């Protein structure tokens, strides 16, 4: 049963990373324009050089 002392913290940490990513995504307003973001990835405007 010692394996539990590894597995439980690992699963919690992994879940926690997911939660942290979700919180970060909300904080940085990434759910404001889901349709726009889905389409923006297809534009070729900034393929060769980053947006100034």
């Amino acid at each position, binding site marked *: 049963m010692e394996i539990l002392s590894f597995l439980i913290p690992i699963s*919690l940490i992994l879940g926690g990373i997911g939660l942290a990513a979700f919180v970060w995504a*909300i904080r940085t307003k990434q*759910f*404001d*324009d889901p349709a726009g973001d889905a*389409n923006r990835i297809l534009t070729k405007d900034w393929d060769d050089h980053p947006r100034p």
Partner: protein
Amino acid sequence: MSAAPGSQSFDPQEFGTVGAASACPACVAAPSAERLAQMAQPQHARLMFSLPAVHCAACISTVENAVQALPGVQSARVNLTLRRVSVEADADVTAPDLIRVMQGVGYEAHELDPGLLSATETDKQGRDLLMRLGVAFFSMMNVMLLSVAVWSGAEAATRDLFHWISAAIAIPTVIFAGQPFFKSAWAGLKVGRLGMDFPISLALVLASSISLYETIHSGHHAYFDAAVMLSFFLLLGRYLDHRTRAVARSAAEELAALEVPRATVLVEGAEVVRAITEVVAGDLVRVRPGGRMPVDGVVESGTSEVDRSLLTGESLPVFAGPGSSVSAGEVNLTGPLTLRVTAAGKDSSLHRMADLVAVAESARTKYTTLAERAASWYSPLVHLLSFSAFGFWMWKTGGDLRFAINISAAVLIITCPCALGLAVPAVVTSASGRLFRKGLLIKHGTALERLAQVDTVVFDKTGTLTMGAPEATNLADHPRPAVEVAAALAMASSHPLATALAEAARAAGIHPARVEELREVPGYGIEGLWKGQRVRLGRADWCGGEGVAMTATYLCTGEGRARAFTFTDRLRPGAEAAIASLKAQGMALRLISGDSAGAVAALAARVGVADWTAGALPAEKAALVRDLTAAGHRVLMVGDGLNDTAALAGAHVSISPASALDAARTASDIVLLGQDMAPIGDALRISRQATRRIVENFGLSAGYNVIAVPLALVGMATPLAAALAMSLSSITVSLNALRLK
């Protein structure tokens, strides 16, 4: 948001004078100077535009690049979800410039008033709920994994360890994610009301504390999983509810924001465009042909005709000359008018009417929804059951507090209105989404339920069943030469009757006669020379003829009597289909209009409404609705004008088209976004179906309770049974909501 602003009566001319496009060419040549200027003058304007046609990845970059290429524009960002673009630009970049640029690359754009788009506040609420939902989901998943181990037989130290870890995850989660319920329960308790949120809060608190107690004493059963699952499902319902409302609110705000309130004021002879709030009584305001009166006033100079159909329902334009008074909201048709302002902004007749509506609206909030009615008997029942179970087991076990509390917590968790909390929002979200795609915007939370109870439909005529756009009817009754002359005269004017006449002549393949010296006399008509004779097309008294009882324009050629060209209002697309569908559903239909009897009778016969009233004043419309309501009918009012607002606000539920005045749209519960009226029939059907689904969902969750509560009462409900009942009932009600067609 596809708020169909295309149907909005939108007039670029109202923006008035156009500023210089490239404000400062030298600045571009000297970038350092430009940067200095930017730093010195940080107050740049933020402009918002609605872009109904934007739909793809290429659209985004086309619009953004075109706008950013304009000098003075700092940034432009398209929001594809809302179909808007927000532009940060210097103060001297004007909205018409940007609209022209966007139209140049093929996108119709309408300016929005950013002040009315208060999206930030609701956004914050939505994000807050989403955050709590996310945290609850994370906890639910982890606690569930640990619980599965306990259910499948973990014992002694392992079980205790799992319970402790669950507690460490679940208790902070319940405290954080349960806050919306705690707050609302506390607010209800303070005014002495037990809503649905009180048993929810009680269940959350009791389940967490009894589980913690059991964990400390290494008990067998802990309900941590039930507590977090409860908060997750209920938050989901809450979030769905919030999103439905946010979508409706933002679309309604967008409709309101489309009318950027501006007026062209004459200051020492020069035209200056000002916000309506800066116009004061006594100012001189100029209104171009085709523009809407921004203020109440008296005509100082100029003659024209005004269309007051939105205010009174009359389809016939009215003459306006020096001395006649006009009200905000009327449309100027032929000649430019200069008005002396008598009342502007908040004092104008339009706003006074809007205030009346606000009073009527507060009466409507008295409607109790199905969910509220269910909660009012469900909530006491839950408490009663839980406490009687507690009392019974205290007596039966001879004072075993721990066991009795365990039972009463189990009862609370099982009966907790998890499915109830999800049952209504899931159905409402699904139904309003469906109606939104059909072009109906549900503005009011309870409108869907009220719509389902309707048995009588009252229609307004002008602007609702008709488009407010005339259509020539008797071209064939006149000799061809007369029509040729009329067509030639009509082509010289932009008056709606003239345009309709010219269009009808063109459609009939009639070539206009050769008429010279064409001259429009604003307020009267058009005159010209035909074969050396003076010919006129316009008002009856100007032409020396006698008026007929219908909407008409008159042609006099000098020989014989004046000829009347009559018009009917063009029917709104889908009006006939909507009326047929309503009839098939067994609704009683009525038509009430402020227009003349002839016009109303003709339209009533055309669409097949037997019961009609003409020449009705706003108060009479409201009285009709009140009388019908008093007679026990549930009235759906469909109207668009200012004269309908009292009736709209007084009806059980009301619908107005997007082209309606702001006041009418505010007064109504549902807005028809497109031009087509056919969705009204569907809306009634869908609303009845949605109400049936809500009731079914109540029945489903009651069914689960009937099975599970006796188990809980006799103390046989394990955490596993609670988790199963909860998730199964939540899933079934969600699936049932999705069955809506």
